[in-house]
Structure formats: C-alpha cells, structure tokens
C-alpha cells in the first residue's frame, strides 16, 4: 500500500489548480489531520531535494517547480515575457506596500484581476499567505516573503522606498481614507 505522502503527491501532480486538504482527504479516504501531516512531510521532503516544491495558495495546495528552475522552464516553454512582467510588477508592488492585503483590495487598486499574478508570484516565493482577515467571508491576506527581501536586497520592509505620502493613503479601508481626505 503506497504511503499517504506518495498518494497525496499523486493527487497534487494531476491537479493544475490548488486543491484543499479536504478534497485530498475525501479522495484518499483519510482524515484531514492525516492529510495535513502528509502535506507537511511532503513539503519538507520536496524542499530538501528535487526540482519541485509544495505551495499553499488560496487556501489550497499546489505543486510547482522551484524558482531556480525558472530559466530552464522558460527555455522550454518560451512563454511571453514582456506582457506579463508589468502586471506582475504591479501586483507585487501593491502587496509590498499595502500588506497584508486581500485579492479584492488589490483588484480595487489595480482595476484588474490579479489571480494569475498572485499565483505566479507565490510560485516564485515572492509572496505568501499571511492568514485571513476577520471580516465576513474571511478573505485570505497576502504579504511578501523573506525571499522577496532577499531578491530586492532589503533587510526589512522599512527599506522600501518612500512613495508620495498623499498617494499613499488610498482605497484599502474606505472609511479611513475618506476621513483623511477631509482634512
């Protein structure tokens, strides 16, 4: 009988969008606790060796290649580079300056969908989930990672360049911002 780790890996392999531990537990007829444990072990195992990594995304799990293989993968798939860079940059900038932030808030600022950006940035380990906002719907909050600081050669988020303060206070929490506009 294959181990729960291997069985979980098989499911993650065939899923190209994030799957939850509940879905995994249903398919494998294991408890969610067993699946969570298997996922934890799998994450460590993958992190230690091999080109794959386990990502926790939008409340689910997904496999992807590690960031250091991006050039190999790009050489094979030859994806469009220029078109995406700008939108990824925008999403990353918004998250960096306004974290923790929900996808809905990012979309409000950008005026465009950011699902792809979130996924792509999480795959590069530049952003990660930071818990949930205690409001109706409990939306997921995103923030930058240590990898982000490392990539941009910063010690902490305090090193982010200052942006014009007038522009700094914007939509996120509508009430607070509108109040400040009155002053």
């Amino acid at each position: 009988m294959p181990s729960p780790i291997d069985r979980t890996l098989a499911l993650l392999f065939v899923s190209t969008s994030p799957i939850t531990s509940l879905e995994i537990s249903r398919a494998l007829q294991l408890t969610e606790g067993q699946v969570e444990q298997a996922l934890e072990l799998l994450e460590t195992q993958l992190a230690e060796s091999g080109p794959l990594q386990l990502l926790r995304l939008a409340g689910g799990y997904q496999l992807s290649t590690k960031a250091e293989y991006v050039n190999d993968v790009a050489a094979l798939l030859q994806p469009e580079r220029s078109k995406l860079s700008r939108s990824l940059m925008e999403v990353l900038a918004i998250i960096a300056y306004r974290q923790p932030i929900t996808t809905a808030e990012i979309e409000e600022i950008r005026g465009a969908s950011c699902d792809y950006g979130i996924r792509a940035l999480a795959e590069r380990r530049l952003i990660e989930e930071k818990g949930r906002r205690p409001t109706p719907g409990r939306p997921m909050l995103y923030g930058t990672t240590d990898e982000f600081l490392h990539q941009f050669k910063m010690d902490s988020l305090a090193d982010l360049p200052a942006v014009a303060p007038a522009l700094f206070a914007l939509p996120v929490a509508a009430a607070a911002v509108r109040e400040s506009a009155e002053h």
Partner: protein
Amino acid sequence: MPPRLEMRDSPDVPHGVTALGVVAPPPLQISCPAFEGSLAMLFACVREHRVDLMEVALSPVCEAYLAYLVSLPETDLDEAAAALAALAYLLERKAWLLIPVPEPEPEPYEEPDLPHPGLDSDYHLAIDALQTWHAERADWFFRDGEAAVTAYELPYRLEHVSAADLAREFQRVLQRAKPQETPILSRPRRSIADELRRVADRLSPEPAPLWQVLGYAETKSDCVYGFLAVLELVRLGQARVHVAEDAVSVSAVLAPRAAVLAGGHA
C-alpha cells in the same frame, strides 16, 4: 425479364454512376477458380495486383460482353464504353503478361498483399492486445493540458529589478487608481432636496447595501447628508430598510417620483 436486370441486382457493383462520378461497367459476372465477381471487381483486383490474371480466361468474358451488347436493344452507351475500357485494360495487361519482357512493367503504386475478405483471427488477437493496452493506459494520469501551461508563463527576471522600480510601479498604479482631487476651498451649502433626489436615484426595488446607496459619498459630510436623506425617504414611506444578521440594506418603495420630491421640499 431481361438478363441485364438480373445482373444489376448484384450487390457488388452499383449500376450507373458511382460515388466517384465514374460510370461503372455493367455487372457482368465472372466465375472461375481464381476469381469470382463482377467485371468491375476483376478490373479493380487486377489493377491492384490482387488477382493473377494468368489464371483468368478472358475469352469467355469477351463473349459475354458481346452477348450483352447484342442482347440488349436499349444498351446504355456509357455503360458499354466503361465495360469496353475495362476489358481492353485486362486484355492489354494479359498480353503484357504473356509476352516475356526484359524489364518489369512499371508500377505507379506498390500495394501490399491484402488478407482475405473478412477479419481473420490475427486481427482479433491484435484488437484484444490493443484493447488491453488501452485499458491499462487509463490507469495513468498526466498533468492536465491547458491549465498547466498558463501557470508557467512567469519567467519574470528579477536581476534587473530594484526596490526603486517597485516604488515607481506602485506610484503609477496609485495615480491610475485615483486621479488627483481638486481641493475644496469652502464647504458648499447643501439642499436636502438635492440629497433626496440623489439618494432616490440610487434606490431600486431590490434591497441594496447602505454603502452602495451612499456610493457617491466621498467625505464624512457626504455620508451624513446621504444618511439623513435615507432617513427622510423612510419617513416619507418611499424607502424601506432591511436589517439582516450582518448587513443593512435599503430598497425603494414603488411610488410616483413627484411625491418624493414634493415631500422633500415640504
């Protein structure tokens, strides 16, 4: 009944124009140890090297053809011509076979030997094997097609990007998100009637959240004026407030618009 009609009942070869738009020869039936079938079939088989023409005597066929021509007063000329062409081809081929030639006759297309009509047991074995493979193959799962590729359109090169670029990008996004506001020099006077009209415009018979009804409000005083207008509309019976567990929504009560405005002024 004339013999020709009997012959046309043969299932092998349809009469007249074929699906390919070629006129088929009459269904003259030939029967000998090496071949059994119509003239058209013999023609096709010889052409594709599936019948040894040396084993088929052609003189009875020629006689049958002549009999066919003679016996049928209403002979279709096209049909007769097609049969003549087929017969001529066969005679020429046979002549070539009878004359020893130093060079082999040039062939336009090399056709492999076909098995006997009907599926033989070899095919059944092959089909069984393929079916097993197909079933076994269903036990394997691969990464799903389209979704995977889009997930990898991400090679964003970070080596040339600095935190300053990030800041610039953020500023650009913010500028796009909200244009610069013109400063308000003095607080304008407001008419409650205007406020009522504005709120009434945003109301619909479907309950909408309060923030949506007050959507135009940009300042704290906007909110206060808007809220007062909602209260006034409720008092006038033009709006209804719905309180649910976690949200408050407002809907319009269908009534002539004039009454609302008149009420406002009153």
